[in-house]
Every structure is written in structure tokens, then in C-alpha cells.
């Protein structure tokens, strides 16, 4: 999002509240309405469409991003609540074209079909493994329970997360 302009508001209507976010390493200052969700702001003015909306009600996990390092359903967070926080979306995960090891594992293990749940699933996994780098299969299943996938039957996603745990153990750096 470099060049999007930290100084100027991206929307400038009345009864807007100015908030400041650090999104994928870049400071963004923008006006939001009080009922606007973080998801709406990310997909709308910030055009981070890698963040997906599956239900808008916190039931599917497709919109998962990291807020101050913790996975959240961005559809359940008001943009105002996110003021001052640091947000990492799928767009900010790979560094200069180098995939994060969780992304590598998802590709290699065939954990992706339609791919719509993938960004949220990957971010939830990154959050999970930051919290518990040695997650067991049961912990993976529990930790990702809020993320729905209709294509894969979860089997290869679990394998991918296990592979990511292994890669991390072997010292793979992002």
C-alpha cells in the first residue's frame, strides 16, 4: 500500500471518524463511519481484496487477519476499534515475492481448491503457530475450528499446517 498516502484521508465525508492503522507495514489514516467494520475498510477504501468476506457475521473465518499479532474475524471488528492497531493481511504475508512458510506448505500439500477460504485459513494458521509453534493435530483442528472450507474436506489443510510446523522446526524463515 505504499504511496496510498499516510497523511490524507481516503474518504472525506461528514460524520466520519479519523482512524490510524498500520496495515501491512504502512501507516494509513482514513475516515470511517462508526458502524463500518474493519473488513469493509480493508476491502473497500484500502482495496485489500485478498481479505475475503464469506458471511459477514463471524461464522466462516474467511476474513481472518492478524490484529496486533492475534487472528480476528475482521467482519466482527469495528474499524473504530481497530484505531491505532497493526493489521497484517494475506497481502502483507509474503515478503518481496518470497512466500511465508505457511503459504509454501499450503501450496505443496494441495490444501487449496477454490481458494476462497485460503487467505483467512493461512492467516489463522500463522496466528495459531505464533501462539503455539508445536501445535499437535488436535490443537490444529481446535485452533482452526472457526474457519470453514467447503472444498477440501480439511484433510490436506491439516497436512499443510503439520508440514508448516515441521518447516518451522527445521528453521525455515520467512
Amino acid at each position, binding site marked *: 500500500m505504499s504511496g496510498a498516502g499516510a497523511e490524507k484521508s481516503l474518504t472525506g465525508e461528514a460524520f466520519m471518524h479519523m482512524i490510524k492503522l498500520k496495515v501491512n507495514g504502512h501507516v494509513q489514516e482514513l475516515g470511517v463511519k462508526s458502524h463500518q467494520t474493519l473488513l469493509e475498510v480493508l476491502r473497500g477504501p484500502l482495496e485489500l481484496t485478498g481479505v475475503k468476506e464469506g458471511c459477514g457475521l463471524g461464522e466462516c473465518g474467511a476474513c481472518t487477519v492478524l490484529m496486533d499479532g492475534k487472528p480476528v474475524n475482521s467482519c466482527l471488528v469495528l474499524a473504530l476499534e481497530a484505531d491505532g492497531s497493526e493489521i497484517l493481511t494475506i*497481502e502483507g504475508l509474503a515478503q518481496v515475492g518470497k512466500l511465508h512458510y505457511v503459504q509454501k506448505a499450503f501450496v505443496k500439500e494441495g490444501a*487449496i481448491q477454490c481458494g476462497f477460504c485460503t487467505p483467512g485459513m493461512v492467516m489463522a494458521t500463522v496466528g495459531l503457530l505464533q501462539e503455539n509453534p508445536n501445535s499437535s493435530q488436535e490443537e490444529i483442528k481446535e485452533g482452526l475450528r472457526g474457519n470453514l472450507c467447503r472444498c477440501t474436506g480439511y*484433510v490436506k489443510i491439516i497436512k499443510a499446517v503439520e508440514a508448516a510446523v515441521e518447516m518451522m522446526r527445521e528453521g525455515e524463515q520467512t
Partner: protein
Amino acid sequence: MTWKVIGKGLPKIDSISKVTGEAQYTVDLKLPGMLYGNIFRSPLPHAKIKSINTSKAEELQGVHAVITAKDVPLNKFSFFQWLADKTILCSDKVRYLGDEVAAVAAVDEETALEALSLIKVEYEPLPAVFDAEEAMKPGAPLIHDKEKNIGFHVERLFGDPDKAFEECDYICEDRYVTGQVSHCCLEVSNCIVKWDSSGRLTIWTNTQAPHTQRQEIARILGIPIRNVRIINSTMGGGFGSKLVIDMKLPIAAILSKKTGRPVRIENSRAEEFSTAKTRYGYTIYVKTGAKKDGRLWAREMKVIGDNGAYHDKGPATLNFSSMMFGTLYNIPNIRYEGNLVYTNKQMGTAFRGFGNPQIAFACETQIDVLANKTGMDPLELRLRNANQSDQMTFCGAEITSCGMKECMEAAARAIGWEEKRRGKGLRGVGLANMVHTGAGGRFYGYNAADAFIKLSDDGTVALITPAQDMGQGSHTVMAQIVAEELGVNLEDINVISNDTDLTPYDLGSWGSRTTFMNGNAVLDAARNTKKEIITVASEMLEANPDDIILEGGRVFVKGSSDQYSFSELADYAINKRGVPISGKGRFVDKLPSGYTIKEGFAKNIPTFAFGTQAAEVEIDEETGEVKVLKVVAAHETGTTINTLMAEGQIEGSVVQGIGYALMEGLTLKNGKVINDGFIDYKIPTFGDIPEIETILIETNDPHGPFGAKGIGEPGLVPTAPAIANAIFNAVGIMIKELPITPEKILKALKEKKGG
């Protein structure tokens, strides 16, 4: 046969764009000047429209258009036009809760929603009917201006079932019920439509069948087909839900025409659950008769299909059910009767398995009840009746390759049949067979596909195929076929499939047909491209064309160090010879002699795919909960093109099948869907999945590309009956209604103890 690319477990070619969030889905697109449309839907399941007042909505600032039936063409439409029964917007009557009455286009979603709240419609409520069997009865409320609610009827007869049942030693008769379930694609159904000033309509939408939808749009709007262009994007799931248009496309078109601006309409998740099309609910009466030795001798089935309020793919679904019913086992005497009945509910449509999971649940659970009667092991009974390769069945099905017996044996072995069948506490195992098409069908009177390849001047290969990738991975399958044939790397192939202006006509991605049909067309295009490559290479290498080898993106002669890369070859072809390299491919599935669609029955299927699933379950007698411990899924693939993706198709299907068996079903109260979100409509999550063991059985189909057949749908078909049979084995109760909820288990256990 050793292949370099075929048969490998390679990641999908679009994985990187999907894992980085770069992949653009239709919901991610925005056009300059785009307006946001929304649909005003009926709040009643059945009513006359007395008046509509849109004036307040029109006055709202930011609203650009409000339309009702008076603004749209009122010609009736259906997928089968001879059954046309639905207009774009309702003019006089609404037939389900959610029926489209009016629509708005506004500057943003909020304004569009506010405008909807300002539309006032007066209704005169009519009695409604929500059960298909009730709707068949005399005196039931009539949903259309027709004498009865039966919208389609089909009968099939082979042999003499009445006489044959008299000859049977064992007979079972049961009634089964399966409900309406939702596809639950993670990307909701949505579109952007732009009607430009030259009269051309461009539609961006998530679709499995852009070419047939293009015809449908032209038909419903009464405009020439040439005026319609459909562009697909990366798709967030399909499963059959995106074959036939729904009304948001023509509604957005009219809104765009009225406003001169592109219009987006997107379902909310609640709309997706409560108004989008579903799997057809079936009520099924089955009677099966066997001889003393276990030979299945006669079978009849009566299906009452819940059509919902309007026609869609129902007739085809009922017909397909009959073909699978006739082909699963080679029974000499069969009768099938199907009735498709209107109800005041959301419409049905195609859904992975297409009428097959419903009847497989009935047929395959009844086999276990029958086996129980005869005292035979259900596996043994099935093995005695197994189909084989190169067989013509009594109902005329031509079975070319068949791994039914191998699938059964593999599944039984992997689940530990002998040992676990004896039961241990409240655990049990069960299995079920399936047959499905492995190559779509000849339902249009033909079955064909085209493809084009060009070798770009940089040496990369562009493949133009109409095969739609909804996530199942067809782009990767097509690319693998090209890579194998041309000896290039997978990453050197670009697959283009998303624009009806560009791609050859095609019937769409359904019926597990893309690998077989489009795959064969792509293989033909690759072979023709290869011929041109060899001509050029033999000139460059001054060698005999027969000696040219294509490998690793290079051409050379065996034993010689002279070689050229594809980019050198392309450069030579274009700049020295002045003739670029390309290839056209076509596959026409040869129709059997004397074939007609109507009389073809199972001859409509180019090749069949068999499979067996075995499940182990544990029942909690206190709560009625069923825990699926393990599912073994043995399916034949012909030849597996990509092991990773074939497994993925089967694993995903099995888990959808577990949802179908135990959890999923739309629940209505007075015609209103009350579980219209993922909180109340449960689909399997990480916590619900058992160990899944996938076994791929290769049978090398004589007509498939590299021997392959489709594997997109089969994995869902036998899951529910395998689980029901395992429950039967564990606690001796057979639940005949899906989903098998804890309430049903507890009730049956109580009745069993009481009785």
C-alpha cells in the same frame, strides 16, 4: 507406461495466486461508475400481488433506478424452455418466500438496502404447500396455473418386475426421505452487468457454464445471443450451483440498461441460504427383490422430487437418478417412476452427484436390510452382484472400464471389515457402492468439446479451453495433459478459459465431464501442435521427423547434442519460416448406434465411474450422537492425472457427504428458512472430520485422455449410505431420513428398546 507429468501429485497451477490473495474473484471486481443493486423479495411463500408502490424508494437520494415487473420482459423462462414457468420479476403472484418482486440500483449498498425498505407491496396471501407428497394430493394449493403441481413425470421399465418379484425369495420395501441442502460455496453468487450503448451486455459472474448461460440470458431478455458476453473470474466454489442463471443476472442487466452504468448484485449469506437454489429433496419408495443365492432379481423405485416453486434442472436430475438406479447393479427387472412436484419453496438445481446421492442413500441402505434378511454378509451380497468391465447391462448401459469389485475389496480391507463387522460395543462398520458418470452425458443429443493451443513467440504455451475451474482444478488437469504431450514444464503453460468471446462453445463444467471431455479435446490440440513442432524441429535439426523428441521444453534427436529450446523453436517458426505454431483440438464422443436422448437411458453416459466407501462409526446412546471414526473411499479414476487433486476431490466430497448424512438440511417454518447462516446451518468443520483414507483404483478407460475419467462428484454419492449402514451395524437401527440427527437416533433407539 511412465509419464513425466501425468499421475503426479502436483500443486494446482493457480495455488500461488490463491495463497497470496492475488487471485481475483468476481466479488473482488469493481468497475468505474458501478452501482449496487439489491433485490426486493417476497416475504410470503404464496400470495397474489395486489399493488406495488416504489415512489418513496425512487425519491431516496442516491437511488438511480427501481424496477418492477412492468420494467422487464415478461417472457417465461426455464433451463428447459419447454417447461418455462418463471419471469424475471413477479407480476401477479409470488410462489416462494424470496421470490423476486422488485429491484433497486443505488450508489452504495447501504442506500440500496434503505431503498428496499421503502418499497411497499400489498399481497393477498394464498394457502401454501411445503411438502411434495402433500402437493401431489387432490385439493392441494396449485402453485402455477396448471391442473396439478406435478411438473414433470418420467417412467422407465426394463424386464418384467411384477412377475420377477413373485420369483424372489427375499423382498424389502422402504420409504426414504432426503431434504433440501445448500451448496455453501464460500464465494456467494454474484455478478456485475454492464449494458453498453451499443446494446452489448457484458456480464462478469462466477459461472460453471458460461456458454449455456449466455444463451439463457439472451432468451430471458429477448436479445440476440451475439449481444451477450460472459466473463468468469477465479471462482469460489460451484458444486452445481452455478450452472443455470438465476434472476440476479437479468435483473442487473435491466438495472444497467436503465441507468447506463454497470450494476453489481451480490447475495448476502442469508440470501444464499434462503433463496438460492438447493439440492433436490427426494421422497423415495424402493422395493428390492433377491433370489436365495443373493442374486438381485427385481427392483422398483418411485421418486417424488421436491421441485420448489419453479423448474430448473429437476427433470434432468430425475432422469439421471433413474440411469444410476438402473446401472448400479445389473438387475434384469427394473421399474422407475419419477414425479417432480412444485412446492412453495426455493428451487432445486444441480448439486454434486445430481440426484445420485439421494437414490444411493435409499438403494444402498436397503441392500444392508436385505442382506440382513438373507443372513448374508452385505459385502458378499454386493460382490455377487458386481458389474464388470466390457459389459452391457439389462438397461442398456455400456460399461467399458469397471473397477467395482476392486473398489469393494480395497475398501473392505482398509476398514478391517472381517474383524470390525462383528461389532464392538457401540461401534460398527458399513459400506456402500456407487456408480456415476465419469464423463458428463449425451443429454443435449451430443457430447463434444474443442480446445486451441498456440505456441507464443517466447516459447510458452497458451491453452484456450472452455473448461471452467471452480476450484476443482481443471486448469491444472488441462495443463498437465499439454505438458505431457508437448514435453514442456507446467509453469510454461497459460490456461485461458474465462471469456465467451474467446473460448470455443462448451456445455460447461458439470457431470464430472471436464477431465474426460475437455481433457480429450486438449489432448487432441496438443497432438496437432506437436505435429507442427516436429515439422519445424526436423527442419532446424535436419533430422527425420520420427526421430524428434520433445522433452523439458526442448526439441532434440536422441543421441545427438543438437537441441533447441521452445523459445528458439518459436522464434525460428515465426521469424524464419514465417508460420507460427498452433493446434486445434476436438473431441466428439461417439454416440452408440440407434441412440436417441429419450430412449437412450443409460446409453447417455459415455463412461461410468464406480466406487465404494466404508465407514466406521461410534454411537453415543445417551446423546444420540454419531461419531464417524474413519471413512475409506476407494474410487476408480481410470488413470489418475494428479494424485494430490484426485485425493482432494474425494476428501472434499466425503466431508460434504458427512454433512449430508449427519448435519445438513434447510429447515422451514411457514415457508421461511430459519437456519440461514453457518451458525444454524451446520456444515462440517475441522472438528467433525474423521480419518479419511483415499484409495485410487486405476482401470485405464479406453476412451479417456491417458485413460482417465472424472472424479469430481463420485466421492459424495456413497458416504451417507455407508454411514447409515455402519449405524445399522453398530446399534441395529436403520434411519431412513437424512440428515441422521441425534434426535432421530434417540427416537429409534427408544422404539427399538420399547418394541
